[in-house]
């Protein structure tokens, strides 16, 4: 299960210890997270994060590792969900299958669907690929609404996960039990997908991404490389779909929708498609944004849009790349110099955000809730959306923040540039040793 053990021999020594530590830490986080966050909402959220991690990682097999931009990945996770819930209902009717294996059924179904649809999809790469997935996605989604017999119509298909035999008294009734099932799958699937990147097929997939033409001249059929990888990715997507079916105990047509596929794309990218662990971050952010952000503010879609805009512009490698850049700085022992700058940046950015958010919230208030009086509470303070004071205050806060931020930013950019230069020199020096 653990790729680290088998790769041990060839890898650079100190790295390996690190890898053990990372995987153990990952397992530990999965284990203790629900003990730290105990409310029922946070437990469902943790479960959903696990599910999202699997599906985003599987999406990244296509996007990050294979250079395949798919607009229809939800088809595979979604079909996994549907077949899993039908299977669950069969279990209720007496099919002798442990509930804990239902996600595997989801995986196999996702895979099967990919075997059929993937054949046409992966014939092409690049933009034609993207457009085929868009078309297939739209078709499947439209079909899902048309066939209530299989997809359950508006209400979808419901199931009950508390069914079948209960080994060790585990019924999966309480969320926490299900969480640990999901955590287990998440760990195993993550490990497997990581292992995949270390296999011949995984490597050839990278090669196909970078230079498909040349791949043909070293003996590989690029279409087959894409196809097999696509099917494997669909398998993991299906597992995630199966877990989602168990988690929600209901599957509706939204699981195959284009919106869902779009979310996988956006958040995988936000997390960082160029690093293996990027999508994990993306998945966590996805759940947080969907569940929490929308509770905090009505303007959440606006905030999300802005975050994307800025991330794509300033950190096109996603959150993961930001982390890696800082790790590099840390590796050269210069991170501590940056602390002050980071603090200053964070603080001033927060001020800007505060001012901007106050204004955004006031605008939303005027638009949506003006009738409830001009007053609204924002982070505990009371703002008057019709009052000059509030607007002036918010604008003042924002502009001051902006000014200070710019000062901090300039300082930081200079410092950062210096450090990068140092690192480059240092690397050259080490190379020439």
């Amino acid at each position, binding site marked *: 299960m653990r790729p680290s053990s088998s790769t041990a021999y060839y890898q650079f020594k100190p790295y390996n210890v690190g890898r053990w530590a990372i995987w153990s830490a990952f397992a530990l986080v999965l284990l203790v997270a629900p003990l730290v966050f105990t*409310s*029922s*909402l946070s437990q*469902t*959220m943790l479960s*959903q994060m696990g599910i999202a991690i699997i599906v985003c990682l599987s999406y990244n097999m296509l996007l990050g590792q294979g250079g395949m931009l798919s607009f229809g990945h939800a088809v595979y996770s979604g079909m996994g969900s549907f077949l899993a819930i039908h299977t669950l209902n069969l279990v209720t009717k007496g099919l002798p299958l442990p509930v804990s294996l239902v996600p595997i059924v989801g995986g196999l179904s996702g895979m099967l669907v990919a075997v059929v649809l993937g054949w046409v999809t992966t014939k092409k790469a690049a933009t034609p690929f993207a457009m085929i997935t868009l078309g297939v996605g739209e078709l499947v989604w*439209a079909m899902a*609404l*048309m066939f*209530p017999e299989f997809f359950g*119509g*508006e*209400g*979808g298909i*419901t199931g*009950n996960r*508390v069914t079948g035999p209960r080994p060790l008294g585990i019924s999966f*009734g*309480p969320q926490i039990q299900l969480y640990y099932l999901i955590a287990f799958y998440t760990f195993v699937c993550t490990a497997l997908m990581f292992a995949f990147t270390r296999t011949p097929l995984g490597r050839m997939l990278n090669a196909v991404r970078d230079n498909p033409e040349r791949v043909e001249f070293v003996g590989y059929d690029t279409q087959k490389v894409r196809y097999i990888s696509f099917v494997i990715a669909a398998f993991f997507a299906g597992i995630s779909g199966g877990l*989602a079916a168990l988690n*929600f*105990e*209901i599957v*509706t*047509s*939204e*699981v195959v929708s284009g919106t869902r596929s779009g979310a996988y794309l956006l958040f995988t990218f936000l997390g960082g498609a160029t690093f293996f662990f990027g999508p994990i971050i993306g998945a966590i952010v996805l759940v947080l944004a*969907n*569940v929490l952000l*929308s*509770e905090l503010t*009505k303007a*959440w*879609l606006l905030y999300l849009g802005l975050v994307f805009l800025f991330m794509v512009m300033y950190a096109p490698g996603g959150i993961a790349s930001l982390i890696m850049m800082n790790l590099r700085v840390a590796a050269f022992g210069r991170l501590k110099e940056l602390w002050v700058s980071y603090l200053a940046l964070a603080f001033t950015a927060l001020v800007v955000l505060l001012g901007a958010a106050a204004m955004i919230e006031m605008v939303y208030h005027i638009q*949506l809730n003006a*009738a409830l009086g001009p007053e609204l509470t924002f982070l505990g303070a009371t703002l008057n959306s019709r009052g000059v004071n509030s607007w002036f205050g918010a604008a003042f806060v924002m502009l001051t923040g902006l000014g200070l931020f710019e000062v901090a930013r300039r300082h930081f950019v200079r410092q950062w540039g210096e450090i990068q230069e140092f690192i480059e020199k240092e690397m050259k020096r080490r190379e020439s040793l």
Partner: protein
Amino acid sequence: QKGETVRIAFMDPLSGPFANVGQNQLKSWQFAAEHFSGAKNPAGVKFEVVGFDNKGSPQESLNTLKAAIDQGFRYITQGNGSGAGLALEDAVAKYNERNPGKEVIYLNYAAVDPSMTNEKCDYWHFRLDADTTMKMEALTSFMKDQPKVKKVYIIGQNYSHGQQVAKFFKEDIARKRPDVKIVGEDLHPIGQVKDFSPYVAKIKQSGADTIVTGNWGQDLTLLVKALNDSGLKIPMYTYYAGVTGTPTALAAGGDSEVYVVAYGHSNHSGEIGQMAAEFKKKFNDDYYTFATYNGINLLGAAMAKAKSTNPVQVARAMEGLSFKSFAGDATMRASDHQLQQSMFVTKWQKADKKYPYSVENTGYTFVPIKQMDPYVSSTPTSCQMKRPSGG
């Protein structure tokens, strides 16, 4: 119980494409809650409605349910979309079964899939709207007296709601007016049609004199526009011509003969009429979700009867309870928890002295042309209600 606060979690889309409907309905709930709080309800409780954004998604609804339960809500309400409704009905059932003593009641104010009170019915679910079958029952009862109706064309969205409308119309009309011919039936993918003129051409070719549709939102407005453009002026019987946004589009299309079946209309007088006027003044928006009126009153009556605000007792009290609705008496039928209430058929026309209410400030209004007592639209149920033991 007097002076207690009953908190209701409202979960419907508050962002995204359906936010307009959701926002309006949240305000309606809050407005009704405020209106009937304290002495104005028999139990003397204070109602408070808090909005949760489920984005119209069944899965997100489950998250908002969890969030609401975490925050101590014992009453939830939802209506916009049967998908989310069915998800909530099922989730509430499972939650209540797995968490005895912490039961939650789900008041459904607009999700009209009949299965919610039939094969999938549940003890904790109470529907305040009339389901598709009831509306169709009322609509066909009206249509059977229209001699003009001879050849009907059914057009609808190809998903469960549209399919049900078609199915029940055919069944009901065959029963009531066997001479009426169905000259065509079209189900189109929901939200995908940009141009309805091919459908209009088909309708025209079929020689139909009447259209029946369960369409809503853009699928309805575009249909109406295409009909107007082609000059095909035949009456249309609908469910959702009054939903936010549609009247504006209807008005832009000029005069057209449109009927709507619903459990209310926009020209009520009396208390509800005053409330609508007040609502309009306050929010500059229409008060059309009258189920909020009934919902709060039903709760108040049940809490008075149960002398408690505990959902277990309140649920029991609501079964079979009769209360004063805005249009006569209404009864929460015990066998399936479907509210039995009066139904109206209204017609789209210019607002006048008698019916002055201008919907969405269009200068048009929905004029009630027929009111039907609850028994008319009552439909049988296949529900086998499982009641909690000891209840």
